[in-house]
């Protein structure tokens, strides 16, 4: 009984992580689309060592967003590789958002917060899924 309940929870958290990854992917993609469509959308920060031009950052976000969404869908399977990829992608997402923060601090903070929630769900609860099999 106890075992069963644990698994039920774990599946819930994995779903949570998967939906959150689809959401982060969409956020990244939107942040990217804004920049790709309109170079002037973001105020350029002062001199900054990661200051690629706006559309370069746009493409980074867009491609990262698509990859994160795909990884999110893979996560619905609950497979170990999918959870590992999920954690790695969430870490990359948080680090990219931090590096990009000077361009749009509020968007970056939201991306980081959601990425942390994914890492938390997958590490603190992800393993319980295996109790199912």
């Amino acid at each position, binding site marked *: 009984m106890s075992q069963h309940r644990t698994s039920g929870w774990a599946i819930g958290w994995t779903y949570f992580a998967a939906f959150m990854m689809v959401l982060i992917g969409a956020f990244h993609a939107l942040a990217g689309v804004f920049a790709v469509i309109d170079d002037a959308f973001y105020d350029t920060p002062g001199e900054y060592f990661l200051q690629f031009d706006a559309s370069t950052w746009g493409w980074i976000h867009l491609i990262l967003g698509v990859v994160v969404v795909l990884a999110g869908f893979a996560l619905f399977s609950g497979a170990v590789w999918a959870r590992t990829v999920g954690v790695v992608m969430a*870490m990359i997402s948080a*680090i990219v958002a*931090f590096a990009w923060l000077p361009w749009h601090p509020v968007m970056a903070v939201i991306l980081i917060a959601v990425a942390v929630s994914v890492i938390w769900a997958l590490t*603190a609860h992800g393993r319980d899924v295996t109790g199912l099999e």
Partner: protein
Amino acid sequence: MEQRETSGWAIGWTYFAGFMMIVIGAFHAIAGLSAILNDDLFVLGKEYVFKFDITTWGWIHLLLGIVIVLAGFGVFSGAVWARTVGVILAMISAIAAFAWIPWYPIWSIVMIAVAISVIWALTAHGRDVTRV
């Protein structure tokens, strides 16, 4: 049965802390590189005690970042010393970020929030690992 469930949780939290430490380390390194390379991002406000040269702050962040990433990998072992070091470094990270707030507030706030999540994961849940 009960025992196993507790351990499973604790291992999960320790992993969480390990991954978060790698993320914080990367944050410090990015902030540090940015400062060392003399970017214009930083607000030079009023006179203040910790207003070292920005390059000095850059090196502090960069070295702290590297140490935290290494300690993060150590935390995956779940060893008591690694968790102790993890908590101490997360506290140093939060304090350094706080002292650095006048330079770039939002980066600091993000670092502090993530550091607190590490301390919480390692203290509130870390000890259970030893029961494995």
